């Protein structure tokens, strides 16, 4: 066992890369749930974003175009979910699960001709001398633009939900849609917008997997990341700052356990592999044990709304 082979700089840097897809998808779902909608289709929207972004990036040679396309693809699939649940009042849980299954299926259909292709590279930003600073240079200034975008988005979501009038309206819809409706707020329109935003974020997260983190397209490549993003939202008790913490904790434990294994630490591998999931369960239990935690969920979460009610 030799822990000195693990470089803290590289560990933190790769932790951030591993966490970014989770962070993006979880931020989107946070806004959706704050609007009172439970969309279990995150996994499906992520993988549709992964193939959509990959295909467009390969065809155009531009990773940025790929990320834009991924956001559009994710939002498009989310809109299908939105129409079914907001206009046709379908059950949100069942529709969300169907969205995931549909997304997995259509992505493997779309991806038939894209396996084994290398995408155009998304380079790390070159910040000149800043990038050469010890530790800070690699950890703070040595990433691609999507990592910075995801951090900026965390702040933007926090500001929107807690400091803006529009955010207050969105939260009102999520807490009590009947009262919001009585105030003249367009509940369905706001929820549709939130759902589309959530889909776009999930799509970006998926594209980050296929364009940066792996980077290649393979069927089923999200392998559960969408479900973890859903868990992170609950873990974070619906707060943007804690979503960041949750995503980095989860991504961090995964990367750390692989690093510890590679360094030959004599910890049983099964426990290391289990640890992120155990931590999530532990936090969920702790949260529900405290009354304040349970009350953090938007009161109208998962309920269908119709103006005639």
């Amino acid at each position, binding site marked *: 066992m030799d822990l000195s082979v693990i470089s803290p700089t590289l560990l933190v840097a790769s932790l951030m890369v591993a966490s970014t897809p989770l962070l993006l998808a979880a931020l989107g779902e946070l806004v959706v749930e704050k609007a009172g909608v439970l969309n279990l289709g995150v996994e499906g929207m992520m993988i549709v974003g992964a193939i959509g972004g990959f295909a467009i990036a390969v065809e155009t040679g531009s990773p940025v175009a790929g990320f834009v396309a991924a956001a559009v693809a994710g939002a498009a699939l989310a809109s299908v979910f939105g129409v079914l649940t907001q206009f046709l009042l379908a059950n949100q849980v069942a529709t969300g699960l169907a969205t995931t299954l549909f997304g997995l299926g259509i992505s493997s259909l779309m991806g038939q001709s894209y396996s084994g292709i290398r995408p155009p590279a998304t380079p790390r930003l070159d910040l000149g001398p800043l990038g050469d600073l010890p530790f800070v240079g690699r950890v703070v200034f040595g990433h691609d633009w999507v990592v910075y975008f995801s951090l900026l988005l965390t702040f933007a979501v926090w500001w929107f939900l807690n400091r803006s009038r529009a955010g207050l309206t969105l939260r009102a819809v999520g807490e009590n849609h009947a009262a919001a409706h009585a105030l003249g707020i367009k509940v369905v329109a706001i929820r549709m917008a939130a759902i589309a935003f959530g889909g776009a974020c999930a799509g970006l997260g998926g594209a980050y997997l296929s364009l940066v983190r792996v980077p290649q397209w393979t*069927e089923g490549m999200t392998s559960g990341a969408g479900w973890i993003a859903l868990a992170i939202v609950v873990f974070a008790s619906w707060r943007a700052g804690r979503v960041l913490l949750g995503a980095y904790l989860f991504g961090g434990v995964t990367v750390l356990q692989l690093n510890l294994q590679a360094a030959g630490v004599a910890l049983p591998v099964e426990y290391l592999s289990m640890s992120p999931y155990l931590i999530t369960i532990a936090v969920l239990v702790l949260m529900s044990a405290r009354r304040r935690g349970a009350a953090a969920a938007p009161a109208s979460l998962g309920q269908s709304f119709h103006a005639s009610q």
Partner: protein
Amino acid sequence: MIRRTFLGTTLLGAAALAFMQPAFAQDDKVKVGFVYVGPIGDGGYTYEHDQARLKVEEHFGDKVETVYQESVPEGADAERVMTQMALSGADLIFATSFGFMDPTINTAKKFPDVKFEHATGYKRADNVGTYSARFYEGRAVLGHIAGKMTETNKIGYIASYPIPEVIRGINASYIAAKKANPDVEFNIVWAFTWFDPAKEADAAKALIEQGADVILQHTDSTAPHAAAAEAGNVIAFGQASDMAEYKPSPRVSSIIDNWAPYYIDRVQAVMDGTWESDDTWDGIGPGMVEIGEITAVPDDVKAEALEIRDRIAAGEYHPFTGPLNRQDGSEWLKEGETADDATLLGMDFYVEGLTGDIPN
């Protein structure tokens, strides 16, 4: 009402599909069925089985007809698929995954005149044979290249599950790498998955960051190759399939499953009426395991690797030849002694020199 019409149409469509499949069975042709566990486009395991099916068609032309079913779950569904194949006139059915073992045996009991071939299993009957490949022979060749090519003397190994097949691979590569370079060290990461590109990429990155400049993998995606390409100065090897898209570097060689010669041989046996249930475990010699083109390594390393491959093929060299000790230092094989198949099939220990424990 609309719903009933819809249901009716769907049922009719399903029935029509079901009847279309067996409609063209003819008695003078040998009909061969293939049951796959994954999609034929997985680029790895199932892809190679399907390539072999196409070679069977090419080889026999009009004399053979093949049918296949992809993404068949391991369980009761497999029995249904095989039953349908048998009912539609299949003479020989290849069940290509370990998890099809009991369904194969059950179906075989119902159709004593149909021959079954089950991959990587151990249950046989009068009309059920088994077959598998000695991938460890290929790993010995890759291990040699790995040992010669590493400059940091650290080789990263991404393992899937702690089963004998994977442990055999680790041991075979280590023995060969150690012979090529006595200072070599293996860092083994258990991913506990056959296929999870993100996790495989993270594992490869962790190994590379800790100084490994050669990555061996027993997982199925090309994600570790992408990580190696990004890091630069790191080489990797194709698994199950050639993974040629990462040629000439970082992918410098590969182990390829080539089932075609075996499938052609068995179909021929059915045609001739000489088919018998047996247990086949073939390696490089009969061509079931192939070494992909060796690229981007010095000529002498390539020549040595090819020599090892040829000596294994000719039966002159066994990758597990003594003197070899187990990890705890106890003697396993004496000078010149080679491992027997029973020990290899049940291998649950590391050889001396490997560090870490095998997870249970």
